[in-house]
């Protein structure tokens, strides 16, 4: 039993691609071991920007020998064919055997296959395995038509026990030598064994374990200050360093007059720093950076980073001051020159459509906010920090003395950015967010820009998902079909989003969602109420049997000749069971949808014994056509009137 170590040494691989590459490396290598019956299992994968590493244990030295049965012609075949088969396999006819199979007697040949040495197999298979790692964007480096990888491969360690698994990839020969930190420890190649690999790396300023690097960063950051939690940044720093260490820097408190959103954006995204909170929860004039060297005793790194941040903040201040020379209100007309989309038109045109819609949804204030919402696209700040669009608009409106409610609505109008994000906090903000998103969706669908597969350049799915979330969780309650206008594809598109939302986010069963989708709902809040009631009534004993009866009714009605009406003639109800059913129906049919859907559904479910008795005793297809039509009319009326809350026939039951 042998251990195995693979290290693919490369130039700096983008941090965010490394975890996925490691996962694939582990899976693919395990599959390789299994497919070739080499025993063994992958015990760990890990890496840094400069190395993808895999450990495995328990590999056998050599595959077991095996016997391969080669089937030939039937026993009764022409002797020439039999001789041909023997010759093809390099044996004489005497070496063949006749074996009986289910199809008859056949000549066969049992070939002895010697197992191959594991080292030889791995040498053959590893280059391909490495090259097949998927990366979002790979490159040539030896020239056009050469190997492709995410970044150039510069060394490979491949050890099976103490033996090098010898192969070549992209001009690099595998071996037993790794490399340490780019500028600390030994500069040249470092010989390693499987046993001392990690220790040697550590000696040369590479912490090979990403778990250990992450923990070191977290520990040191926590020791330096009250850093804002930032899981994504932590992950980036874990994979962009080989020997991380955190340092605390500061900046002049006068910059704190700039919007904290801008300061934080510069620190987090441009400089990869953790922003630091003061004791009172406001932003402190500090940052925490993570370096790729163990310490900074002379303060070079702190000073350098402080200098850079100062320059960045100066830029931000410059943008802020330039932007204040014109109010957002003045900037709205400039949107005529900002293209929303070539086929759709400018942002100014979009703005006027959005204003009208926002007015309908949220009144004057919403219309006012919608008018200003896109004007920040013309500011220097948004040109520099695109991700702050909306927020900058809101901040500027507040700074320029606008109404707080309008400022807040603009600030939040891109929300929710994901299903985890919250919706705008005010009804005005929700109206602007809805109007903006609905307009984008309607406009794009109108010019055939409909997302397909993974292609969704305008993030229309996210926009629609946001609309659903706002309508369910927010304060406004407009009719969704009305909002969407008459576009069939857009309705379908939303149906998918609604399904997704209630199934994946709210956890309702698919068939329950389908049942409510098939009912005549208008508002998503109402949709949720129906769904909730249906879900609750579902577990009551009468419900599922009744749902089955509804399916039966639906089938009967569907099979009936066209022209079945809803009329019920009491005179023609001859049997007690059908009279009883008609009475029960009559009692409930006029009920307005009260909003207490649960009670009404219970009430409908309570009809179950009557319905059961009806089907037990009554032949719907009575010989007398008048009676038959009357019965069909009764059933059709029941189906129609009692599917208004949810269509029970969509419910999947044990019997369906």
């Amino acid at each position, binding site marked *: 039993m042998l251990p195995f170590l693979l290290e693919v040494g490369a*130039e700096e691989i983008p*941090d965010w691609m490394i975890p996925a590459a490691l996962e694939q490396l582990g899976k693919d290598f395990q599959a390789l071991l299994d497919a070739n019956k080499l025993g063994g299992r992958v015990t760990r994968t890990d890496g840094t920007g400069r190395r993808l590493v895999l450990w495995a244990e328990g590999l056998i030295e050599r595959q077991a020998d095996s016997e391969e049965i080669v089937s030939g012609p039937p026993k009764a075949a022409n002797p020439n064919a039999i001789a041909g088969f023997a010759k093809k396999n390099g044996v004489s006819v005497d070496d063949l055997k006749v074996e009986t199979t289910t199809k008859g007697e056949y000549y066969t040949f049992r070939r002895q296959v010697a197992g191959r040495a594991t080292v030889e197999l791995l040498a053959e298979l590893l280059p391909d395995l490495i090259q097949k790692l998927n990366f979002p964007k790979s490159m040539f480096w030896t020239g056009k038509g050469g190997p492709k990888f995410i970044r150039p491969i510069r060394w490979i360690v491949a050890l099976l026990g103490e033996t090098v698994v010898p192969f070549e990839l992209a001009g690099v020969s595998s071996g037993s030598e790794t490399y340490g930190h780019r500028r600390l420890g030994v500069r040249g190649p470092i010989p390693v064994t499987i046993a001392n690999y990690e220790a040697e790396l550590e000696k040369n300023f590479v912490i090979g374990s990403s778990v250990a690097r992450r923990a070191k960063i977290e520990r040191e950051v926590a020791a330096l200050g009250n850093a804002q939690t930032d899981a994504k940044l932590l992950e980036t720093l874990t994979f962009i360093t080989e020997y991380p260490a955190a340092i605390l820097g500061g900046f002049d408190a006068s910059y704190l007059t700039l919007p904290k959103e801008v300061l934080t954006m510069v620190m987090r995204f441009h*400089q990869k720093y953790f922003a630091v909170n003061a004791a009172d929860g406001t932003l402190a004039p500090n940052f925490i950076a993570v370096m*790729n060297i163990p310490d900074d005793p002379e303060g070079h790194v702190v000073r350098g980073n402080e200098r850079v941040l100062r320059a960045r903040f100066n830029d931000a201040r410059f943008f802020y001051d330039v932007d204040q020379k014109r109010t957002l209100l003045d900037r709205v007309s400039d949107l005529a020159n900002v293209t929303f989309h070539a086929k759709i038109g400018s942002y100014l045109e979009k703005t006027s459509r959005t204003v009208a819609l926002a007015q309908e949804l949220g009144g004057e204030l919403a219309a006012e906010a919608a008018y200003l919402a896109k004007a920040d696209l013309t500011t220097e700040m948004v040109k520099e920090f695109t991700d702050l669009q909306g927020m900058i608009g809101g901040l500027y409106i507040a700074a320029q003395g606008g109404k707080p409610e309008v400022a807040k609505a603009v600030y939040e109008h891109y929300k929710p950015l994901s299903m985890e994000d919250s919706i705008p906090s005010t009804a005005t903000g929700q109206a602007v967010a809805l109007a903006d998103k609905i307009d984008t969706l309607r406009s794009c669908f109108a010019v055939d820009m409909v997302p397909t597969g993974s292609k969704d350049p305008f993030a229309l799915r996210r926009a629609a998902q946001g609309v659903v979330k706002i309508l369910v969780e927010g304060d406004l309650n407009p009719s969704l079909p009305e909002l969407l206008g008459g576009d069939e594809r857009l309705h379908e598109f939303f149906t998918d989003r609604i399904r997704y939302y209630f199934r994946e986010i709210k956890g309702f069963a698919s068939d329950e969602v389908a049942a409510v989708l098939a009912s005549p709902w208008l508002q998503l809040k109402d949709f949720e109420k129906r769904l909730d009631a249906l879900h609750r009534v579902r577990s009551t004993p009468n419900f599922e049997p009744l749902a089955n009866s509804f399916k039966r009714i639906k089938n009967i009605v569907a099979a009936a000749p066209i022209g079945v009406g809803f009329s019920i003639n009491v005179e023609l109800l001859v049997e007690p069971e059908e009279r009883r059913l008609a009475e029960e129906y009559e009692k409930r049919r006029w009920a307005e949808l009260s909003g207490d859907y649960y009670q009404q559904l219970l009430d409908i479910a309570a009809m179950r014994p009557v319905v059961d008795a009806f089907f037990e005793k009554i032949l719907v297809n009575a010989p007398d056509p008048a009676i038959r039509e009357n019965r069909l009319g009764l059933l059709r009326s029941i189906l129609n009137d009692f599917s208004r809350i949810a269509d029970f026939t969509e419910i999947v039951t044990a019997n369906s």
Partner: protein
Amino acid sequence: MDSFQETVFKLKKYWADRGCVIQEPYDIEVGAGTMSPETFLRVLGPKPWRVGYVQPSRRPADGRYGDNPNRLYKHQQLQVILKPTPKDVIEQYLGSLEAIGIDLSKHDLKLEEDNWESPTLGAWGIGWQVMLDGMEITQFTYFQQCGGIDLDLCPAEITYGLERIVSFLQGKESVYDIEWAPGVPYSEVRYFDELQLSVYNFESADVDMLWEALRRHEAEAQRLIDSYKTVEDPAEKRRFPLLGAYDQVLKCSNLFNLLDARGAISVTERVGVIARVRKIAVGVAQAWVDQEPFRTMKEVA
């Protein structure tokens, strides 16, 4: 402490010692060292090439009238092209930083993903921005495509931002305080370029003249590209002035940048003008590749 020019000398010497031809800047306005024919045309085709040069790079929209300590209309790039790329290219690059006095064991150096793309040149590559103590000092790119053409060899392009590196080395807050030569500050050498050309670019350039010049240089480039296609005689192909056509492309690119800074190009128009410049850049690149065998041909006696 080395002056600006001393640092430049050291970098040039470093790369000259590694087989680079040290060139002077190209003498037409460009936005980046990549646009010099020493890069744009030389990276095409199968011939190895190593070159280093300082390229003053004009970005009209970045001008700040000499007021901003970190933004310049015209900054200096040291551009190094290594074609093909040596295996130890990053090691060599790090060595160049050490050669100008940066002790990398005491500074935080990171290579952060940053793929480069120039829509006007039909060029892109894969690479990093090199961060030193949080400051971007170099763009490192493995060229993949140039002028819309897949590159036979994938050259490494190393672009040093000289002002940033030197202000780092000299510990200056403002680029204008950098010592260019002993006793001569950067401001003495460059301040009026920044002030007067910011005024010209933002306020005074004649927009109609710029549009007209753009149109004429574009037409001249296109005329040459079209006419190259009709040439059949090898000797005529060899002497055909594609370099002249490329100069027209550079003129157009700079005029586009000027118009942009002047606020004369609406967002809607922008895409269209970029496409016009790309068309002639790609046209010249294709012709240049086609001309390659004729340029290698011995001159007819």
